[in-house]
Structures are given as C-alpha cells and as structure tokens.
C-alpha cells in the first residue's frame, strides 16, 4: 500500500531529532501503551504483519503528527475494535458494556516474561527450491497491490544483486490478512546508491534490503 509510512527517500524532512541521554520511556503512559499493544497480540487475532498494516492505515497527516506510542495506541484500539474485542460504545463510555462477557487474559506476567526470550521466528521450511542464488542480479517489482507489503517504494523497479539467502520466511503480503500463512524464499538484495537515486546519489554507498522471491525478477 502506497502510504506515508513508506518513508525511504522522501525529501523535505529536517534534521534528525537526536536527544542526548534519552530515557526508554518519556512518560509512564508510553510503557502502558507498549504493554497493551504487546499483550493484545496474545489473543492471536492479528499477527505482526496485521499490526504493521494497522499503522499504515492511519490517515497520512495523523501518521506524521503522532508520536510512536500514539501510533501504537491508535493501532491497538483500531485492531481491537475491528476484531470485536471492544466496541465503539465501550470506547466512548470508557468501560465494558453491560452485556460484555468477562474474559481471562491469555497471558500473565510470568507468561510474558517467559515468552520474550522465545519470540516468534518467521523462518519456515518449504518444498520449493529457491529461484535465485547469491550473486544473481534481480529487478524489484514495479507494480504493487493496495494491501500490506514490505517492498519499499524507493526500491521498486531497481536492479540489485542478491548477497544472501535466508531460506523461506512468512510472506507478509498474505500473512497480514489472517487467512492462512505462506512462506517464500527471502533474500538480502544490495542496490548501489547510484542505481536507486541516480546521478545525484552521494558517492560510495549502497542499500541492502530483505526482499521476498515474488518481489523479484531476473535481471541482466
């Protein structure tokens, strides 16, 4: 989806907002929002790709105006409402509706502490052989779809070289729909700055990104 989250190469932004001795959280509420968003994922009604997509669907002006944890707050509320875990009426009232069935949280403090060192690996075994090998030249797709994708706009149509193969990983362009999972071979593709930005590119830099097999076509 071509929205404002796809920021690579967008011009007009000012200096990087560097902050010396930055705290982990700038206010207590940020940690509470992190916790809510993280823990709501344990209902397994959305995955990391759907989570990312929920932020991509924020209106562009709001996306740019919101701080990181404000986006997280909006994302968890929107996903929870979309999946029926909360209702608009409850959001406006600030409390559960009278007909709400009491539930038990899917994870407690010990459970989430035990989960963190495990994580959720994205690598999968698939039967299909990889279509590309390290050293191959590939062109990234020009056309994209309206849903969630991880092919950045600034790399579309550009030619790069495969520098590593990671086996197969869950394919986000399908995974975010929560209608079943497929995996595709995943590669790191290296693009020269000049290939991506043209003659005005800064000298001597390259950009590498992880791209799934169906994003790529052979190139010369």
């Amino acid at each position, binding site marked *: 989806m071509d929205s404002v989250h796809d920021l690579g190469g967008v011009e007009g932004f000012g200096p990087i907002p560097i902050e010396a001795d930055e705290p982990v959280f*700038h206010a207590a509420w940020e940690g509470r929002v992190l916790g809510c968003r993280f*823990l709501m994922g344990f209902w397994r009604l959305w995955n990391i790709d759907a989570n990312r997509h929920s932020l991509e669907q924020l209106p562009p002006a709001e996306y740019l105006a919101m701080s990181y944890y404000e986006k997280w707050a909006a994302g968890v509320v929107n996903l929870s409402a979309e999946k029926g875990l909360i209702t608009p009426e409850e959001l406006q009232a600030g409390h559960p509706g009278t007909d709400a069935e009491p539930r038990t*949280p899917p994870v407690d403090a010990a459970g989430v502490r035990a989960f963190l060192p495990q994580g959720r690996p994205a690598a999968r075994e698939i039967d299909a052989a990889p279509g590309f090998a390290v050293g191959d030249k590939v062109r990234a797709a020009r056309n994209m779809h309206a849903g969630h994708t991880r092919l950045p706009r600034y790399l579309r149509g550009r030619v790069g070289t495969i520098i590593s193969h990671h086996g197969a990983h869950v394919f986000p362009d399908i995974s975010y729909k929560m209608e079943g999972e497929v995996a595709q071979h995943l590669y790191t593709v290296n693009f020269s700055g000049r290939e991506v930005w043209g003659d005005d590119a800064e000298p001597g830099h390259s950009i590498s990104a992880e791209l799934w097999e169906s994003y790529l076509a052979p190139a010369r």
Partner: protein
Amino acid sequence: MTKKPHHEHTHAHSLLPPDPALRAKAIETLLVEKGLVDPAAIDALVDVFSNEIGPQNGAQVVARSWCDPDYRARLLADATSAIAELGFSGMQGEHMVAVENAADTHNVVVCTLCSCYPWPVLGLPPVWYKSPEYRARVVREPRAVLDEFGVRLPEDVELRVWDSTAEIRYLVIPQRPAGSEAMSEAELAALVTRDSMIGTGFALSPEAG
C-alpha cells in the same frame, strides 16, 4: 475480483480522548476491565524494557567479539546463535545478522517502513530511529545524516545501509578503538554505545570512556 476499499475501518481511535496520557489510561482501563489484558503483565514488560533488555546486552556481544576471534567468527557466521551464547534471544531478534565496520567499510541500520530494531541486544529504539526524518533520509543521504551524529567518514569509506524490511535484525560491530588493547572485556563493553551498534556512532575511545 473484488477490491477492498482502502478505508473500511471506522478509525476507532478517534473516539478516544485527544490527550495521549488520558488516551492511554482509557485504553488500559477498558482492556483490563474487559479481562483482555493483565495489568501485572504490563508492569512486567515495562520492567523488562526499563531494566533488563537494553544496549548493555549488545555491548557485551561486541566486547566479546573484540576479544575472542573464534566468537567473532561465529557471530559473523550465525549471529542468532552467537548472541544466544551470551543469553540474549527472542522477540525482535529471532533472526540476527552481524555486520562489521572496518577501516574501509561502515554499516548503518534503518527500518524505512516502520521501526524494526533488534530488541534483545539493543532494547527499544530511540525516538530518532523511529522518526520520519531518519527513516526518510538515511537511505538517500547517509553521509549527511551521519554527519549530524558527528560521524564523519572519509570519501573512500564504503557506506552500507541496511533497511530492515523483513524479520532479519542487524547488529553493527563497531571498530575496536585505538588504545584499548590492554582493557578487559568488561571494560571494553563500557566503550560500546547504542549508536555505535546502529552505525550512527563510533565506540568511545578509552580516554572518553
């Protein structure tokens, strides 16, 4: 083929109070009262990310790689396993790759599409890493961006930008600073800054550390 409308969502978040702290309170209150979230689990996450998971973890990995050539080789060959040797693993670090800086090569990491960051070794990302400014600019004008961090590289140093578009997460191994030859691994770890492991800084020199 039916095409989904782009905005089928009601944007439920617009129903909440505009003030971020009040909004967060409203969300937590509702989720807890509905039995959807355990507030003690929120406390646990805040504690873990405030006190246990942070760049001090990655600094141990880098210091070990400076002292132990065999460890460095394992880190470059399979970073996930090598990092797990030191007890760091899991969420947002399931598939780690380590890239090393050298006299002729400098690496810098970004996530242009969101805010992907290697939590087990670096903790939660700083605001600048998640900012539109950094995400937009570092792929297009990396030298200008690094200059703002005080990282000035000679023209002949090759600059490699890594855009974290999948679940691969990067750890930059900064160059070991001159004058640190006699230091212990623990002393060396104190020289390894968060920014040096993203590529927007150098390791501290022993005099500064």
